[in-house]
């Protein structure tokens, strides 16, 4: 296993990462333990609710609720800075005016050509 090479389209799984087993300081072990404790607590809560024979309703996931709430309310903590104003202008304001001008000039030019009789009316489907 020492010369394990992961498949081209996969990342190395955590259990095969040599840093998990060698050169692990006590601090890292402590952090890993607290992470495992959190995960175990969540598992316990979920399994208790899942295997409760009297449960009739869906198991509500607070992480999901928080995620949905966060994604639905970005304007609570929105602040107009340089970057956000620039992005807003680039995506909201500039296309409006730019497209108007592009279409208007193109169509005016075509109209002038038609009036002058110089428009080349080909039979191709694309123009």
């Amino acid at each position, binding site marked *: 296993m020492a010369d394990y090479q992961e498949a081209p389209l996969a990342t190395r799984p955590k259990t095969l990462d040599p840093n998990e087993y060698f050169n692990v300081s006590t601090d890292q072990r402590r952090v890993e333990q607290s992470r495992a404790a959190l995960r175990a607590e969540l598992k316990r809560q979920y399994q208790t609710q899942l295997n409760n024979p009297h449960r009739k309703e869906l198991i509500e996931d607070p992480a999901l*609720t928080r995620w949905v709430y966060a994604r639905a309310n970005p304007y609570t903590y929105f602040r107009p800075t340089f970057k956000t104003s620039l992005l807003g202008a680039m995506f909201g304001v500039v296309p409006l005016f730019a497209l108007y001008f592009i279409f208007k000039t193109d169509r005016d030019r075509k109209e002038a050509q038609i009036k002058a009789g110089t428009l080349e009316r080909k039979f191709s489907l694309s123009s």
Partner: protein
Amino acid sequence: MRTCQSVRQQQPVNMAGVGFRRWAVALSKGKGPGISGLLSGCRAASGVTKDSGLGPYPKTPEERAAAAKKYNMTVEDYEPYPDNGEGYGDYPKLPERSQHERDPWYQWDHPDLRRNWGEPMHWHFDAYIRNRVDTSPSPVSWSSMCKQLFGFLGFMLFMFYVGEKMPAYQAVAPKQYPYNDLYLERGGDPEKQPEEVKHYEI
């Protein structure tokens, strides 16, 4: 379960008027989520409570610890998005890895999403599900892939453009018809002798 605001002391006032005024004030302030909050001045205890939703960017270590606890993460792992005014608040910044990269053999609580219950979700979780964006390592580096694709497309576009400007085709000549350029078929006088049309040279 409904929890109303504090009870007023006994006063000989028009209760309907007081209630209406309080409701109007609460309506304008927009307290509480949903219709239940607007209509009655009290709010329901379901849904996101004030502390469990998105909070402001944590500035002090205590705020960071509280936010990490809220999101079920260790304090070392918890890293909020930088405070740019982009609306993230205190939501944690998780590594940009799609669900494709998670262990397919582990017994996840939600196997199709490869996620356990209660695990903090990435801000762009809906983009990283297994039907969508895949951040797995590719066989060739990104720059190499870009160069190959755009190089090929650019080359083809360039060659087609050159072909439009400088067309190259087989030499052609006007069509040659027999019988003196079809003299009789074209309505020529049968009595008269047509002029000889020769399409060859010896």
